[in-house]
């Protein structure tokens, strides 16, 4: 009889762990109250996902700012061997992803290859199988001249990494990668901003990261049982306190469809107020977080 109970217990443990291993972990199952508040018409929200814009998207605000390439803002790919713990590898994988995106924007081919190699090394060390994150290296080498192909390869590498980690109950690691990428992109933007004449477009883009920060905090909050995540959550919450001083007033959206181009346009404007002091505070906190990672 005792053996049977043990057998039942064993079966439950095995299946529960198997289930966890495949669960999509950026799902906030318990946060039904918050979800209901966000959409009062909905009776039950079973799953909430938080996404954060990829470094590929965030980096583009730099090209729109029309500033020249400066590798000094990046974390050197040569430091890759220094990162040995899970935390260091994950966060710096994100950081290198943003640096690679930055290099791609400025068509820095050799640097792109160097950063991609660093990413591959970290990815291997994190235990992500070759077929999930590694084969892209060969394709990268044969598509060096093509900026769009490079974008697709970066995107595929990150999606495979994200998928693999989530399938294997390592969602917190995936979240740390996303956080590293977001911090680095914002770091580069703030550094550029200090070294150029007042560039309102860039300043606005930095201010608008207020929205993404909220999503990032939501994403990381799914992993509050992970000490590393909690450490970064504290730092991001401090950053959020400063971002609260940034005022963004949004006009009402109008939605129109361009039938010729076959696309719908969501049109509105953001009225943004960010003072110098707040900008410096944001830059300092972002720099501190980033420097604690690299």
């Amino acid at each position, binding site marked *: 009889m005792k053996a049977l109970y043990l057998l039942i217990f064993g079966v439950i443990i095995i299946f529960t762990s198997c289930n966890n291993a495949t669960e999509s972990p950026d799902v906030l199952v318990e946060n039904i109250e918050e979800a209901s508040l966000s959409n009062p018409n909905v009776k039950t929200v079973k799953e909430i996902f938080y996404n954060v814009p*990829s470094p590929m998207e965030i980096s583009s605000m730099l090209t729109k700012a029309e500033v020249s390439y400066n590798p000094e803002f990046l974390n050197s790919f040569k430091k890759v061997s220094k990162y040995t713990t899970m935390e260091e590898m994950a966060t710096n994988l994100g950081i290198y992803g943003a640096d690679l995106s930055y290099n791609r924007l400025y068509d820095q081919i050799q640097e792109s290859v160097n950063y991609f190699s660093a990413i591959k090394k970290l990815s291997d060390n994190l235990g992500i199988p070759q077929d999930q994150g590694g084969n892209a290296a060969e394709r990268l080498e044969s598509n060096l001249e093509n900026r769009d192909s490079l974008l697709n390869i970066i995107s595929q590498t990150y999606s495979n990494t994200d998928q693999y980690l989530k399938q294997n109950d390592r969602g917190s690691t995936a979240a740390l990668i996303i956080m590293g990428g977001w911090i680095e992109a914002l770091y580069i933007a703030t550094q550029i901003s200090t070294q150029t004449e007042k560039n309102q477009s860039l300043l606005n883009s930095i201010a608008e990261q207020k929205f993404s920060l909220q999503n990032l905090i939501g994403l990381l909050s799914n992993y509050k049982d992970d000490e590393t995540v909690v450490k970064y959550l504290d730092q991001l919450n401090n950053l959020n306190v400063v971002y609260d001083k940034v005022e963004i007033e949004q006009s009402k959206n109008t939605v129109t469809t361009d039938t010729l181009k076959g696309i719908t346009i969501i049109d*509105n404007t953001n009225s943004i107020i960010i003072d110098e002091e707040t900008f410096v505070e944001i830059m300092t906190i972002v720099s501190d977080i980033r420097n604690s990672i690299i």
Partner: protein
Amino acid sequence: MKKILFTLLTVSLLLGSTFQAQAQCKKFTKKVCLPTLQPYTYNGQLNSAILGEGDVAELLLTFHKDYKYRISVCSQEMIGDLQFKIFDTKKNLIFDKAKNTDKSYWDFLAKSTQQLIIQVTVPEEVPKNAVLKTGCVTILVGFLEE
């Protein structure tokens, strides 16, 4: 003794089927959902879950100024035709699939940076006493540089 064996069997079947469903969900996302994003670039973040009839899922994301986006919502056939709506953070309805398209995705251009909420609902179509159907639901986001 029989009771225990029955419990063991039931628990095994329930948990086993969940495990199998999750594994199938990942395969389904990769084979069926990801290709629907073409020619948009996938943002790299996987949002998939097993949902049943009447369940609702939401995705919160910031969309950037002057980017084109594709939101793709797909599900396994057994749970029917999913509906999705897009709201801004002030709860204003931006898009309702039921009124606009029969496609599983929606493309738009964002003229300013803002947060949007994508709300997906699994239809309730079976009688109350019927067995609840569950299946894989995936929400993906792709972008295009202008």
